[in-house]
């Protein structure tokens, strides 16, 4: 994974536009988020292989980045993205890592199921 190059990510977002694609979207604070600090509210969520199609998509911000995809019936949105997989040719793999390198957020697109 490399720090996000917004222009390169935008090119990859455009690559999947107007097609049926699989989405993986995830937000996690980790399974131990509240273990040592009870004031923390532990939460996480993901959806894997949701089938979507979007007509517009873009990356915004100056880092960490935001991505929004306009689908036929709604939206996909993710904030806090920091890294992407630049060697991947047929998937879009975006992630947001915290200061310790841990994954907080992930947004991935592929024409084949994950």
């Amino acid at each position, binding site marked *: 994974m490399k720090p996000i190059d917004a222009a390169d990510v935008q090119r990859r977002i455009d690559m999947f536009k107007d097609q049926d694609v699989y989405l993986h979207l995830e937000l996690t604070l980790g399974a131990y988020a509240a273990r040592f600090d009870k004031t923390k509210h532990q939460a996480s969520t993901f959806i894997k292989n949701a089938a979507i199609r979007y007509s*517009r*998509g*873009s990356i*915004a*911000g100056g880092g960490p980045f*935001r991505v*929004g*995809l*306009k689908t036929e019936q*709604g*939206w996909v*949105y993710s904030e806090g993205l920091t890294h992407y997989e630049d060697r991947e040719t047929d998937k879009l793999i975006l992630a947001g890592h915290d200061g310790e390198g841990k994954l907080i957020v992930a947004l991935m697109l592929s024409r084949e199921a994950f």
Partner: protein
Amino acid sequence: MGKHVLLVLPHPDDEAFGFAGTMAFHLKNGDNVTYACLTLGEMGRNMGFPPFANRVTLPAIRKGELEASCRAIGIEDLRMLGFHDKMIEFEDPDLIDEKIGALLQELRPYLVYTFYPGYAVHPDHNACGAAVVRSVARLPKSQRPQILCNAFAGNSEADLGKPNIVRDVSEFLPLKRASITAHRTQFQAAELMGQKPWSDEELRARFGIERFWIYPFAD
């Protein structure tokens, strides 16, 4: 018939803190005020405390709060433009500009109030301000209304200088308080309201002044 003022903001409650007193000022002076609100704030995290709204009911509840806030200020012409909360920066700019452009054509305002693009913290605020600037820039120079922007990013004064308009709205504070508290789901949050009702002094100190920068067009 008075002249027209147009207020364009992305979220119900954006009008309450930074613009309510100024809108009341214009109404008192005989101007007509139209408020175009781009979204219903349906992605808001404050659901009342204890929560009485949910993700499904929040848009309708916030619509009601927005209408109540407008009644408090005296705004009779409220347009809800139907865009999705948090998605203004990702929406097709032509769609947004078309709606704002239609309002500019219909109302021919002499002033448009919005957020200063790049200096309004929330991406929706910045994208809303940018859409207003684009839409007004399309008009012939002689027909452009002045754009008055609220900026509250930390670097606003360092980059933009002092605000062009510093308006004392203390005479409208009762209206402003009613506008703020109309947004029941939003302003019960402790970080905004504190734990006890504001005194008049606190209200004046925090909300008695509204500041605006004139947007400078390059041409």
